């Protein structure tokens, strides 16, 4: 499908998606067009995992696809309408998002399943995942300790846990539902050996354990919080000097539990800097069908990846320069 590239899992996922939701075919074709070979390869690796998880789910792969459609049509679309009308997200308080979303396991289950499929289908999500797989994970030196805050569907954590040579891996979340979802995913994928999942509030975790991690990932977390700078600072306390924080936030991307509006890459970089880290690398990926220039000009959704380094590490830090 991709200029001779061998992408059996992505081909299979796309075929089943379009079979289940034919009207989505044009969107999918647009999203897949123009992906670089390394992005396509990452999407294929991701599609393999999505299919494995789908085949082990009660409703099968079709259930995941139905949840993806539910995400697009019933979760995102009404929020997009509000955002376009008012120029802001509908909710601004964590307690409101908790009441509407986090306290609703049925909704959250479908939401996370939908997001899982979107990681391979939406252009910005697919590029972010490729960035994580191809750029970030190779930065982790052998034995590096790794933490993901809010691992959700568990796929990012799975690829970290199965990276050859990685040290201790942990996943923290404040939601029992999310932790259970991550645990189920890792068990289904056979990747629980070196992973510890903890029901932990990042802020309450405080100094417990000290600065233990070489690497921390916060993927699509900060937009769910009222004070993302405080969250970056809290995460930074768990990083060893010289450790890396990989942040992925969507800008101009309404969802029922997005309460902090990131306006673009510079905004995201500023938050990470205010949190006490030096920016090492940053990149933005526009939504399907838009160039980055057009997305910025039109305030369309853009995924922003920011890599920060905690000051104070030795020159020969266990995390290499890329």
């Amino acid at each position: 499908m991709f200029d001779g590239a061998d992408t059996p899992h992505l081909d299979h996922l796309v075929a089943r998606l379009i079979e289940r939701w034919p009207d989505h075919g044009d969107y999918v074709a647009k999203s897949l067009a123009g992906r670089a070979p390394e992005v396509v390869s990452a999407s294929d690796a991701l599609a393999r995992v999505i299919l494995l998880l789908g085949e082990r789910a009660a409703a099968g792969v079709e259930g995941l696809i139905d949840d993806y459609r539910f995400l697009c049509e019933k979760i995102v679309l009404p929020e997009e309408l509000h955002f376009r009308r008012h120029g802001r997200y509908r909710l601004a308080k964590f307690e409101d998002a908790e009441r509407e979303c986090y306290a609703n396991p049925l909704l959250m289950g479908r939401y996370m399943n939908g997001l899982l499929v979107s990681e391979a289908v939406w252009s910005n999500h697919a590029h972010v995942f490729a960035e994580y797989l191809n750029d970030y994970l190779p930065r982790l030196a052998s034995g590096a300790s790794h933490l993901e805050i809010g691992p959700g569907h568990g796929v990012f954590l799975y690829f970290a846990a199965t990276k050859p040579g990685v040290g201790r891996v942990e996943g923290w979340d404040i939601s029992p539902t999310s932790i259970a979802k991550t645990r189920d995913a890792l068990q289904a994928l056979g990747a629980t050996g070196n992973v510890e999942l903890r029901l932990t509030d990042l802020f309450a975790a405080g100094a417990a354990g000290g600065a233990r991690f070489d690497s921390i990932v916060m993927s699509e977390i900060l937009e769910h919080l009222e004070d993302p700078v405080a969250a970056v600072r809290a995460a930074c306390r768990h990083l060893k000097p010289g450790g890396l924080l990989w942040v992925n936030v969507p800008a101009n991307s309404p969802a029922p539990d997005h309460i902090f509006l990131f306006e673009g890459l510079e905004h995201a970089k500023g938050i990470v800097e205010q949190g006490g880290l030096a920016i090492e690398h940053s990149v933005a990926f526009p939504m399907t069908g838009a160039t980055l220039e057009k997305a910025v000009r039109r305030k369309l959704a853009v995924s922003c990846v920011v890599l920060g380094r905690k000051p104070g590490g030795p020159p020969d830090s266990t995390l290499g320069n890329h």
Partner: protein
Amino acid sequence: MDRDEIRAKVRDILAEVIEDDNVEIEDATVAEEVPDWDSINHVRMIVDIEAQFGIRFEIEEITRSENVGDLVDMIKAKLDRQGA
């Protein structure tokens, strides 16, 4: 405002949203036939229609229209109700 005037205004709004001054539509046109008329651009177009016509859509109405003709009828019905 008659249907032809509404359709012409809808065309102008669509052209601005998808950044294609040459786009042409008729009652039977469906979004899938128009490059870049995707779900997000549809929402953006609806919001622009709301602003320019002074009307408001319910969320269910946004996905209900099968083609341009349906959308024009919906706008006309809302305008007629306002004028009644």
